[in-house]
């Protein structure tokens, strides 16, 4: 039975010859992804080995590509090639370290940018986070950029708490943690798993046995909430849990969890 299934899988993939043709046709495209990553992080795409990583990923994808699934090759391979290129960038000698040519802020930004890909994987596909389609292109891009900035701010909070923040920074981070602690436990856990543990939204969805869209949409709502409630002098209603996550919320309530940020504040682990 398994053999038949395997044989069926084999037969839907390309022959070695066709896969090689695919590699030749898309070589320039894969290199352009490696060049984009190098440009973004001020690296040399050849000297730093990004070209090799992109090529390896391209070859891998050509072997795994199944044309019968109806996904175009570029749609299938782009994220993987980008991932391979950023992984290669992370392995370079001077990655996220200060040097004569790189300030501490630049090094921190590099690290944050890499983490942003975990939270917003659509960036790897060359797209901004999804926005409502009714606003107009510019407004959509602006709104997506705001979402990215708020996401990066949460990541910066995590980094700072883990490190050795300055006293003035601590007040800012405590404020962010306090706002997150005001959320429902389920929402706190969602943010914690994604921003602190580095889990993807899809991973959280599968852990919570719910549809990916539930978690993705809830994440968007939470970012909007944080954005509004962190703005000075604005009282914002705490978001309700969407029906798709209620089962999980009941479980958290049964476990008596207040949420990771509430726990941190209760234990006063964030010094004032």
């Amino acid at each position, binding site marked *: 039975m398994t053999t038949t299934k395997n044989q069926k899988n084999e037969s839907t993939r390309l022959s070695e010859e066709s896969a090689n043709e695919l590699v030749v046709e898309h070589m320039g495209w894969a290199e*352009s992804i490696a060049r984009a990553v190098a440009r973004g992080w001020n690296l040399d795409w050849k000297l730093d080995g990004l070209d090799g990583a992109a090529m390896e990923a391209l070859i891998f994808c050509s072997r795994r590509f199944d044309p019968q699934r109806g996904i175009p090759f570029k749609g299938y391979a782009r994220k993987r090639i980008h991932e391979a290129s950023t992984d290669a960038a992370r392995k370079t000698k001077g990655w996220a370290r200060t040097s004569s040519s790189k300030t501490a802020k630049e090094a921190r930004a590099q690290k944050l940018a890499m983490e942003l890909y975990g939270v917003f994987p659509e*960036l790897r596909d*060359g797209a*901004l986070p999804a926005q*409502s389609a009714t606003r107009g292109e510019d407004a959509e891009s602006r709104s997506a950029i*705001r979402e990215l*900035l708020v996401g990066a701010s949460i990541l910066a909070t995590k980094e700072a708490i883990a490190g050795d923040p300055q006293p003035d920074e601590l007040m*800012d981070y405590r404020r962010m943690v306090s706002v997150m602690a005001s959320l429902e436990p389920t929402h706190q856990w969602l943010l914690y798993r994604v921003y602190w543990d580095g889990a993807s939204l899809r991973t959280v969805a599968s852990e919570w046995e719910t549809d990916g869209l539930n978690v993705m949409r809830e994440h968007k709502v939470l970012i909007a909430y944080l954005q509004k409630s962190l703005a000075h002098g604005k009282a914002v209603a705490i978001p309700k849990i969407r029906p798709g996550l209620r089962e999980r919320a009941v479980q958290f309530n049964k476990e008596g969890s207040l949420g990771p940020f509430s726990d941190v504040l209760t234990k006063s682990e964030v010094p004032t």
Partner: protein
Amino acid sequence: MPKDKDPKKPESVRSTTSTGKVRKTNSITGVKGVERASSVKSVSKVSSVNEPARTSSLDFSKRDKYFSMISEEAEKLVKEGVIPKSSQEVIERAVQMAIDASLLEPSDKAKDKKSSKTDS
């Protein structure tokens, strides 16, 4: 003979040869006319509708525009108190890096189009 024998239990069942009389059904004497439906009195407000969301593709020709949008929005968020002033530069730069590393240059896109033609 056991004492607890059920007195109601039939001794045996014989085949039935006849049934009781079946009474004739009466004909329908009339159908009440269909009454008019009342009009909708009011429609309550819809609190939210799931608007279709779409991802917008990053375009290399808008690179500078994206960068200026990032600076403008970061500035606004700092003024609103959403982003700490102390982290503004790092956060702004991180978003710039993430977007820049996802933008394919136009010459590459032109090459893409050629290759996608050969795809088909």
